[in-house]
Each structure stands twice: as C-alpha cells, then as structure tokens.
C-alpha cells in the first residue's frame, strides 16, 4: 500500500523563483532565504519520495474568471510551467501520476468533497517555486507530482476546517492505494503578506510563528480559525495559509496515529513582500 512519509510546508513567492532562475541565490538579500532550504537537499536524498501531492493555488494563471474551481485535482499526465507574463520559468515539465490522482479523486468525491478533475493545465509559480526551493536546479523533477489547486483568489475561499477535513480524506485515499509508493503531501503559500493597497507590505511575525506552533501541535484547533482572521492578521494574501491545513490533515496523528517529528523549521523576513515560512514534518516509522 502507499505510505505518507512526510508533509512539507513552504511559501511559494514568485520573486524567489525569479532569483533562482536568474542565478541570484548568492546575493546578500537572497542568501538567507535559500539557506532555509539547504536542509531539504540532503533530506530529500534520504527520503526519495515517489510522488508529491502538491497543494497550491493558481494565481489567475490557468483559471481566469471564466471558471473558478474551489478544489481541483490534476489527473493528467504532465503539466508545463506557465507563462505568467514574464515568459515561462525555465524549469522542467511536471510529470503527474494519473492513476494515484484518479484514485484520490474517486475516493474523496465519494466522501462528499466536490472536486473538479483537471487533465490539461499549465502550472504557475505556486507549484514550481516550491519544487525549485526543495530540489534546487535539476534537469528533471526527481519525483512525480500531483498538483492540487485551491481557490483562495475569489472569496469565499474554503474554510480552514474544510481544508483540514479534505486533507484527512486525501490521507485515507493515499493510504488505501494498492501500490507501494512513498508519498509526501505539501502545503504551500503564505506566510503573512499583502500585495494590495495602502496596507501592502504587512508582515505579522508573531502571528506567523504562532501559526507554525499550532500547525505542529494543535492542527485541529488551528483549523477552527475563521478565514477573516487570516486576512486581517496575515494580510489579504495570507489567506493562502489555509492550504497548509490540507497537508497537515493528511498526517497520521490526525487519524489517531503517532505525532510527526519536526524535521526542519525555518522563518525569514522578507522575500519581496512576504514572510518566508518552511516546515517539514516526518511521520514516525
């Protein structure tokens, strides 16, 4: 059977992608940001996941206002990096896992999550920047990736509680997949940032760190926080953090298993307009 071995959480800031693509990772401004992901390289060599279920949001790239799915799972075979207006990022095409993705979709739809299944889509920085941060510069991504998109652009976004429940359903679905696969679930986006209006540049370091604490120790309680708190405390784009609860919901302790181990935790301000947060939780073996 497939196993979930870890969950990983990270911001997916487009400027990090640009710094990465332009070879500016050793500049003073960017060095401390990328240092936060040094740990990942060795860790990944040990972990060798077969598949990552990568929760992210599309930033008005593949989904315009013509069609806005609350939850979309990508069941297609591959996904090209999108041109978001700067030209496409020079990173590898993302290879999916259509069989596992279809299994997850089938399972969670039957548990009353009303997914949209997507087979043709280009993926934006929300998906490719985390891959670059974690895996560095590579010719091909070292594992398959199932993109899972959440609407956090047009309100109402799904609640933290809904995301947490969805994560639990995804966890059950993965664990019921008959093939022996090493699977990770990633939650991306955030941390505090606001990209609009006179309040642009908002950073709430205390709130972000409390969020990380609770995500580790009290995810069920954290999941009860209403969406207005994210927007008020962490900025209008801080709402992206609800997506982290999907990855957290997939961990074993939520279903009565042992607590995960905090393998890595990192927080830094700023990258562009945003606070960078990064956390890795390993399942007990």
């Amino acid at each position, binding site marked *: 059977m497939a196993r979930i071995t870890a969950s990983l959480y990270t911001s997916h800031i487009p400027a990090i992608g640009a710094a990465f693509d332009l070879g500016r990772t050793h500049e003073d401004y960017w060095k401390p940001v990328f240092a936060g992901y040094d740990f990942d390289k060795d860790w990944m060599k040990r972990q060798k996941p077969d598949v990552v279920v990568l929760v992210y949001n599309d930033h008005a790239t593949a989904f315009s206002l013509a069609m806005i799915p609350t939850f979309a799972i990508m069941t297609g075979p591959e996904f090209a990096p999108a041109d978001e207006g700067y030209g496409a990022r020079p990173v590898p095409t993302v290879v999916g896992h259509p069989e596992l993705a279809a299994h997850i979709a089938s399972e969670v739809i039957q548990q009353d999550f009303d997914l949209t299944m997507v087979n043709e889509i280009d993926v934006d920085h929300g998906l490719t920047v985390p891959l670059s941060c974690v895996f560095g510069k590579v010719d091909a991504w070292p594992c398959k990736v199932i993109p899972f998109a959440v609407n956090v652009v047009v309100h109402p976004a799904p609640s933290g509680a809904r995301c947490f429940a969805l994560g639990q359903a995804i966890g059950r679905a993965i664990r019921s997949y008959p093939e022996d696969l090493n699977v990770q679930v990633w939650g991306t986006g955030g941390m505090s940032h606001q*990209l609009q209006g006179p309040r642009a540049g908002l950073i709430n370091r205390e709130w972000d760190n409390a969020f990380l604490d609770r995500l580790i120790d009290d995810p069920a309680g954290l999941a009860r926080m209403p969406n207005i708190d994210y927007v008020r405390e962490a900025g209008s784009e801080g709402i992206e953090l609800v997506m982290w609860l999907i990855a957290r919901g997939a961990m074993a302790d939520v279903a009565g298993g042992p607590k995960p181990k905090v393998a890595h935790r990192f927080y830094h301000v700023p990258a562009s307009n945003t606070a960078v947060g990064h956390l890795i939780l390993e399942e007990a073996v």
Partner: protein
Amino acid sequence: MALDKAFHEIPGTIVFDAEQARKGYWLNQFCMSLMKAENRAKFKADERAYLDGWKLTEAQKQAVIDRDLNRMMALGGNIYFLSKIGATDGKSFQQMAGSMTGMSEEAYREMMIKGGRSIEGNRRIGEDGDAQRPRKD
C-alpha cells in the same frame, strides 16, 4: 451566511469577492490575455487600441493607462490578474505592491527589509496604524 462583513472593515484592503469580480470582470480578463507574448507586444505597441478590443469601462481603461493599481483595484481588479500588466512592464511584485502604498520604491523596500509593515493599528478601520488612509473605492 453572507461573507462576514468584517472582511470589508480592514483598512487599506479590498477583498476580492463575487461583487468585485463582477465589477472587474473584463478588466481582469484583459489582464489574462497578457500571458501570451504576442498580446504583450500588441498591447505595448498601442495600449489604447488594444484596450478598445475589450469591454472595459472608460475609467478602467484610463486606470490601466495610468498604471494606477489602487484605482484598478477599486474598479474590480485583483492583484493576481493586474500583475500581468506589471509583468508586461517588467515590474516585480515588490514594485507593484509598493506602488500602492504611496511610498517610494526605495522606502518600501527598506520597510520590508526592516520586517515589513506592522499589524498594530492596521487590523480594523479606525485604528491608528499607517494603512488607515481613506480608501478611494
């Protein structure tokens, strides 16, 4: 439950809900077109002519030409859509966000390096934080 009205009581912030999305529909869809290189080239060659191909209001077109992001937001734009205009101009997200604060690019960058804008006084309209300037929408 309608969207909690507290969403509309945050200073310096326009929450992009269905109403804003309706108001800004074609403004945002126009922005999406700039994800194609050939459309960016057409837009740059003659902004007015390109804009006239879309069902934007005159106010929306003028706001685009003026690159007035706060005004575009008030007219229904959403930053993730509008960022395609910035991308076409070669601007970073930091330059775009900063341009809405009334600060200079340098001052905004400095603020971010020093830890960003404080939440204190900026949670609710009517507090005394630095994002409490009257909204223009």
